[in-house]
């Protein structure tokens, strides 16, 4: 039987959900199972309701499941909230004291067993042991994960081992429908959060200045990156505000290093003027916008895809920019590397669109994280010039990009301004200079568009296509699988490269289908309208969700099915 089990661990913030989840995820990971982990938490530090959801499978998984097989309820609220989502075969694991009167509930005296093992504080370890027991994990795995966590020699390791075993033993007589045949294989790849993949991508891209102002859900990227300060040529600088952050990044890039910032919608709003600064000075920068629901402060710890049209059009007047929304953990890593490459190649800003769900969830990266052998900086020096004193930073060129020198490195003077300017970087209000500079900047679009990867088809020849972008990828693919299993002629088309819009390839991909539905975490189907603007093709329907939670493949499938008119559309 294929493995597809979802474990949810819920409680209040500060109750140690993370401990249970980490041990469990660690065990699955090191045994060579596929898995993913979604974190759901409120915008507060203690209290409230949080949960962690681990989906375990023998196949790659990239979206959360809509049913729960094992619920670890660290408090009553968890029990109440998640009971409805239990699979028919599901089991609810509770501390003895919280024992609920339901037949699927299994009360284990976590706290008492923890005390026996050396301290109440280890109740979560007991719970983890019980989970592993129910899941049928070999006992040996407990030791391994605890060793990894605590180090073998620590007394705390022994106590926890003891505690976990007590939990494990406490359930050994229970049988569940979804007990796993645990493999003993290599792990399927690294288990990384979106935030960490992005941070590692920045490191691999040779990003040297990362300036930021804390804002959920982007802060994790910077926290992950800060780990490498002192080990790589890197400064991670917390700015006084987002305006400073983006301007620092522009200053650093101008002075010659790869530089980026990360923020969320509110911070991105504050950066829009700086985005234009990068554009008119043709300074290559990378901005990661980790989306959360708005408007304004919105839902700080929830997810959304509501900023697409905003980032495409942000800042006054017009200029080329790249907008890329990675679909997977490996792609996120590569996107940062690619973003810096494109930024420097075209001397334009690049915006990477991710979201809270993607950043705060853990996914398996099946492919190795490859560091580029060399970094192409697209720079010029005096040695490349006939006459360095005649160097003009904004020399006209057909491609739109001019040779880029660095200030104070050579004799060539590097002179740029946020005002409209002549080729020499001096302010100019002349009609000819203005026209030349607009034409020069906009000319980049042509080649930039050629860099764009077409959207990713998944059974792309189907009659109906589900079209989405970025982190909705996993849910869309799985929805397609489900629908195809039920004999619907459905495929998917998922974008990572959104701007400049790869118009021709999109048109081609979409004009083959009978109709397409958009699947987006926003209320107005932004990609849908963008497609219509750019290709004239109109979406036949939109699957939207804007409650701050990620897509579940099942709900996408159900909605799509409804829009296709029940089963009439089967092939």
């Amino acid at each position, binding site marked *: 039987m294929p493995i597809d089990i979802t474990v949810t661990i819920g409680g209040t913030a500060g109750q140690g959900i993370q401990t249970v989840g980490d041990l469990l995820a660690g065990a699955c990971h090191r045994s060579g199972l596929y898995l993913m982990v979604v974190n759901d938490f409120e915008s507060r530090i203690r209290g409230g309701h949080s949960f962690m959801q681990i989906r375990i499978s023998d196949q790659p998984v990239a979206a959360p499941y809509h049913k729960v097989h094992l619920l670890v309820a660290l408090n009553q609220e968890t029990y109440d909230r998640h009971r409805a989502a239990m699979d028919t075969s599901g089991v609810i694991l509770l501390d003895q004291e919280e024992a609920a009167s339901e037949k699927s509930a299994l009360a284990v005296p976590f706290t008492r067993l923890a005390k026996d093992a050396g301290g109440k504080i280890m109740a979560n370890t007991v719970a983890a042991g019980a989970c592993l027991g129910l899941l049928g994990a070999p006992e040996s795995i407990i030791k391994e994960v605890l060793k990894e966590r605590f180090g073998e020699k620590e007394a705390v390791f022994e106590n926890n081992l003891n505690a976990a075993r007590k939990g494990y033993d406490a359930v050994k007589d229970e049988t569940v429908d979804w007990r796993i045949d645990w493999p003993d294989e290599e792990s399927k790849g690294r288990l990384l959060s979106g935030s960490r993949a992005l941070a590692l991508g920045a490191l691999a891209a040779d990003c040297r200045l990362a300036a930021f102002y804390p804002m959920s859900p982007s802060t994790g990227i910077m926290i992950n990156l800060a780990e490498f300060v002192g080990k*790589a040529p890197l400064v991670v600088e917390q700015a*006084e505000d987002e305006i400073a952050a983006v301007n620092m990044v522009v200053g650093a890039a101008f002075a010659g290093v790869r530089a980026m910032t990360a923020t969320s919608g509110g911070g991105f709003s504050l950066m829009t003027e700086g985005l234009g600064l990068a554009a008119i000075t043709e300074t290559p920068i990378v901005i990661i916008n980790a989306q959360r629901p708005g408007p304004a402060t919105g839902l700080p710890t929830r997810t959304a895809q509501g900023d697409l049209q905003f980032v495409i059009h942000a800042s006054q007047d017009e200029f080329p920019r790249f907008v890329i929304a990675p679909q997977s953990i490996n792609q996120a890593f590569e996107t940062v590397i690619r973003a810096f490459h494109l930024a420097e190649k075209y001397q334009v800003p690049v915006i990477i669109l991710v979201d809270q769900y993607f950043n705060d969830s853990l996914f398996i990266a099946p492919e190795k*994280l490859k560091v580029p052998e060399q970094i192409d900086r697209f720079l010029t020096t005096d040695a490349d010039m006939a006459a360095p004193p005649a160097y003009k930073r904004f020399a006209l060129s057909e491609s739109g990009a001019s040779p880029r020198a660095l200030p104070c490195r050579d004799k060539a003077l590097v002179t740029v301004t946020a005002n409209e300017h002549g080729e020499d970087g*001096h302010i100019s209000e002349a009609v000819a200079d203005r026209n030349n500079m607009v034409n020069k900047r906009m000319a980049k679009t042509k080649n930039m568009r050629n860099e764009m990867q077409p959207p990713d088809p998944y059974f792309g020849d189907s009659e109906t296509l589900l079209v989405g972008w970025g982190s909705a990828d996993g849910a869309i693919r799985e929805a397609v699988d489900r629908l195809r299993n039920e004999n619907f002629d459905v495929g998917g088309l998922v974008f990572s490269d959104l701007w400049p819009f790869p118009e021709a390839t999109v048109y081609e991909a979409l004009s083959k289908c009978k109709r397409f539905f958009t699947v987006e975490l926003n209320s107005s189907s932004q990609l849908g309208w963008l497609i219509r603007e750019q290709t004239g093709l109109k979406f036949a329907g939109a699957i939207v969700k804007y409650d701050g939670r990620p897509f579940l493949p099942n709900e996408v499938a159900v909605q799509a099915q409804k829009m296709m008119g029940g089963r009439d559309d089967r092939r």
Partner: protein
Amino acid sequence: MTDVKAYDCDYENKWCPGCGNFGILNAMKKALADQEIPPDRVLIVSGIGQAGKTPHFLKCNYFHGLHGRAVPVATGAKLANHDLNILVNMGDGDCYGEGGNHLLAAIRRNIDITLLVHNNMVYGLTKGQASPTSAHGFVTKAQPQGVAGEALNPLALAISQGAGFVARGYNGKMEHLSRLIREGMRHKGLSLIDILQVCVSFNHVNTAGFYNERVYELDESEYPVDDWHRAMDTARIWGDRIPIGIFYKKETESYTDRLAGLKDGPLVNRQFDPARVAALISDS
């Protein structure tokens, strides 16, 4: 000694005849010449306004950025390459209005840049609205009843926060100002030089006559530049007598000297080492 002419540039100057900015420009050139820093080793970062145009009018590398945002741009450039000599030209509106938050942060960081604020107590380029340093009661078209608030005291602000180099110059004392700029550039860490600057077009109160009557140089032989209390008091003198000079000076480690990431030299000079990065990534 380098000739000041070495910094001349042939881009047409766009300031009004008689503007105090010319004195500041000359003082900058002289300070650079005195230190024999060739134009290609100077980076000027500026904001938007009449002051912000300064780098266009001399030979140098420059980044003429957004209104109010020169300080973070300069900070980023300094972090990228801490060998750079960075001068920043901003207006009073630019630095103390739109950019006020960055000034506070620059002081906290003690980032090693020399910040020249052309303080004409008015918004010049936008045609004469009040600035944060306009006096209470200053009348403009946007403030026909006069400014209702009080003026910011930038020197007292900086000194109160422990800034390590706080000075005031006057465009009418070019030699003195050029010495301040030179000292500011030599100082490791943030140097704030607030410069009294005459705006002949929009400030008819704080004129050359006004300043020439009032301005006096702090007597270096008598004035202890490291006396915080004296500095604080001196910063509050404004009226019949207006002091100029270095109000306060005390060197502490500058920001780029403190950062772990910069111990092995400027970021821009470091080599990319793919093997090392790959190891960092796989070990992490």
